[in-house]
């Protein structure tokens, strides 16, 4: 996202210089890389948790309109196409799903039944058959009741081969195949045919999977399972104006300009354990880049006091958020994304070298390049994931330990290639990384690659890069969408790899299989143990930092916090202060 270099009026410039020019900048250690609350997520077992209405937020009042300032139009609003964090966060307000995340901002995230009466019933105890019963009194915005058939129809749409942009977990699990739409191709191309493994009987929906899928409660929280009324399905146009099942519905949508959400009169708070729906409306304004949004919200003019943003405050504006009045409105914390430097184990075969690379990394310096919103991280899974355990297998302190690295290398000097996408901030980070490793006698050869084809180049097996920049975010707060996706050696293909370390170890593969078979409640801690084992014994990557969120609201926005499920300020509990 390149911003336009606008001409800055001289007056503004002068004011800025006077205001900020001649004071001393000091390091405030208290503001440093704060460790955030650690995730204690779980799947609700008490059916009472899934019952509405949502617990009231202290001091909250109804009414008013909150305003989201956003850089560009949502890629998709059709629930079966949504897969980007901003649209996922927005969808919580108009597309309810079988399950959902109940949060209170303390990190105690709980997966509860949203449309369904509970988080899911494992019928035979083998994770293969899952039963969901819809609550009574659920209605679409036009007043028609939501039935099991609407949910099944919604899921069926995600099979359309021409879409393929949303999450694919449910489809792959139902068919038991990676290529899920070879026979059943969705309600448009395979009209009349039944969705494999999915049945609706009145209000009861049953998923039957060929393999055990113990994390179904998480997977059905994605908007894949949002109900869509077949009679009102406008296919392609549904992406502009989906029919709401949540507390808000679209009143007006001017593409690329704004969306006005108003209350859905047919939403019943008593069916909803998650959403408080305090504001009367939500207005989304597009075309305001992060720099402009952040500056407006920091300035807090009368018009922007109810505004908030879902992008990080850019590095340039960060120093304006340090005054106590503004700081109070900032919500900062880790996201589900973790930044890695992959070590290509096909090329860097010496464990000692990989360990040295881990010892020498100066995370403090690297984090500062991006303005300090990210947090020191030395694990594969992020703190937003259930079972997360903080450890550093190669503890060199915040700035790394070049001496220890040199010791491991035994006086050798080595030369490695480092691949990264050629965009300005990555160039700077690469230059920093090169400088950091030079201290440990490791010379990096920087190879900037075309950002458009970056993952194609580094995802090809047998590539010539020793170190590869990468990052990964979990789809739900379980490491099952991280470790198996990234480090299962059996998934290595010729092209399109996610396992950029090309790491393949039988012992680790076996352990992945074992943990996958465990119940979601038991597996969390096991994944964290595996994370530690991989880092300690094999070091196929260098975790760099937990990519942080740093979002800000106007002074009249209350009740919100960074959601651990999608990483943005939550709308569920947001209210307008009188």
């Amino acid at each position, binding site marked *: 996202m390149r911003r336009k270099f606008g001409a800055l009026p001289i007056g503004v410039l002068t004011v800025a210089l006077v205001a900020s020019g001649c004071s001393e900048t000091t390091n405030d250690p208290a503001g440093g890389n704060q460790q955030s609350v650690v995730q204690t997520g779980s799947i609700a077992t008490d059916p009472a948790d899934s019952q509405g209405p949502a617990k009231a937020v202290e001091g909250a009042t109804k009414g008013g309109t909150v305003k989201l300032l956003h850089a560009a139009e949502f890629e998709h609003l059709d629930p079966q196409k949504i897969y980007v964090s901003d649209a996922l966060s927005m969808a919580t307000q108009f597309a309810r799903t079988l399950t959902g995340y109940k949060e209170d901002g303390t990190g105690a995230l709980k997966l509860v039944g949203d449309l369904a009466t509970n988080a899911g019933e494992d019928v035979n105890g083998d994770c293969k058959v899952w039963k969901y019963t819809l609550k009574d009194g659920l209605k679409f915005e036009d007043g028609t009741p939501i039935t099991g058939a609407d949910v099944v129809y919604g899921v069926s749409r995600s099979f359309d081969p021409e879409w393929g942009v949303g999450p694919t977990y449910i489809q792959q699990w139902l068919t038991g195949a990676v290529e899920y739409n070879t026979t059943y191709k969705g309600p448009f191309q395979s009209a009349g045919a039944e969705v494999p493994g999915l049945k609706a009987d009145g209000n009861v929906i049953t998923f039957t999977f060929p393999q055990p899928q113990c994390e179904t409660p998480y997977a059905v929280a994605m908007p894949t399972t949002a109900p869509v009324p077949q009679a009102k399905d406008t296919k392609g146009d549904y992406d502009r104006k989906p029919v709401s099942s949540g507390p808000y519905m679209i009143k007006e949508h001017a593409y690329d300009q704004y969306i006005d959400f108003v209350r859905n009169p047919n939403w019943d708070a008593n069916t909803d354990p998650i959403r408080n729906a305090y504001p009367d409306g939500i207005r989304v304004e597009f075309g305001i880049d992060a720099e402009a949004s952040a500056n407006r919200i920091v300035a807090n003019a009368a018009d922007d006091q109810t505004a908030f943003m879902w992008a990080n405050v850019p590095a*340039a504006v960060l120093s304006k958020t340090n005054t106590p009045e503004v700081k109070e409105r900032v919500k900062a914390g880790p996201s589900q994304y973790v930044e890695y430097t992959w070590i290509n184990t096909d090329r860097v075969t010496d464990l000692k070298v990989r360990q040295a690379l881990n010892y020498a990394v100066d995370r403090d310096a690297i984090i500062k390049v991006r303005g300090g919103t990210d947090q020191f991280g030395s694990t594969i899974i992020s703190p937003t994931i259930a079972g997360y355990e903080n450890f550093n297998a190669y503890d060199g302190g915040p700035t790394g330990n070049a001496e220890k690295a040199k010791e491991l290398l035994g006086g050798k000097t080595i030369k490695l290639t480092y691949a990264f996408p050629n965009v300005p901030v990555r160039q700077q980070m690469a230059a920093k990384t090169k400088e950091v490793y030079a201290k440990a006698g490791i010379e990096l050869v920087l190879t900037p690659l075309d950002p458009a084809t970056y993952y194609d180049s580094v995802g090809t097996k047998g590539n010539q890069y020793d170190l590869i920049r990468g990052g990964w975010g979990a789809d739900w707060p379980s490491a099952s969408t991280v470790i198996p996706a990234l480090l299962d050696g059996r998934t290595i293909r010729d092209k399109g790899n996610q396992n950029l370390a090309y790491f393949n170890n039988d012992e680790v593969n076996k352990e992945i299989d074992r943990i996958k078979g465990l119940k979601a409640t038991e597996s969390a801690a096991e994944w964290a143990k595996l994370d530690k084992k991989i880092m300690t014994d094999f070091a196929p990557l260098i975790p760099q930092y937990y990519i942080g969120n740093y979002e800000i609201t106007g002074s009249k926005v209350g009740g919100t916090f960074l959601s651990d499920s999608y990483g943005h300020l939550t709308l569920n509990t947001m209210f307008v202060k009188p």
Partner: protein
Amino acid sequence: MSNTPAAADSRSPSTEDTAVAVVQPETAAKAFVGRSPGQLAWIRLKRDRTAFASFITVVFFILLAVLAPVISRLYGITATEGFSEKLTYQGLPTGYLGGISGEHWLGLEAGIGRDLFMQLIFGMRTSLIIAFLSATISIVLGVILGIVSGYFGGWVDQTLTWFTDFMLAFPFLVFALAIIPIINTASYDVGEEVPGSFRIAVIIGVFALFGWMTTARLVRGQILSLREREYVEAARAAGAGSGHILFKQLLPNIWAPILVSFSLALPGFIAAEAALSFLNIGVVEPTPDLGRLVYYGRQWLGTPDWAYFLIPATTVFIAVLAFNLLGDSLRDALDPKSSK
């Protein structure tokens, strides 16, 4: 432009009269002093204060660039050395004005924490290398094509003029945006590092490709008027070949506009190179570069590290201005009759 002062061997008495009258009115009544046009230009140049000031500035920048490695050794800091420990957790340099101190004369780069002074002089080095080589190559190209086109006329002239117009009509920035990354990636295998020197060579090549046209037109016009002069006919009558006439008879008579064109092309290339880097298609990290410094720095305007933007931006501004003014003064000195 037909009255361009001619070289020493071919000057006419009338030019000298005028020049002497202009330059030294108080001695006009006394005996004529023989001065070559070069000497006259030098006298005019010395009296021009703008020229003097811009000359000093230009020499200063060139010295900084040429001596950058020496300065770095004396200063005790290299261009790629980082001082992250001197930044706050948000990446702002601690201290005043973006970390200006006895140790870091111009402060530190916010975020990455390198010494700004070192980045600046090594960036200046990159800029000037690119500008000087691009200007030289494009002037040589322009002169050769201009002479050939003007002297031979006919279909050669038509073809070359058409080609010149074609190249002038070509959108430079769009072409540069498209071709530079393609050349860089196509010349090296996947996984091989594209060396900084190669990236610089590509930029020079693209600049030269798009820089010769104005010179070619200028030279062609000059040659068109000069080739009909008597001395050329005399040379031809004496049996001189085309090569001799082109390079021994005509070329020495048009060196002044060529020099001016060269001196005005330089700042143009400095600015263009900065623009390319600003758009992230020029030289890449870790080769220091002025345009990239401005790009990074401008994000920090309005924060306590506004110096990060203002210092490199002002440097580019002063350098381009100084080179431009010097070029202007040179033109005035060499050709006093051309309008200011």
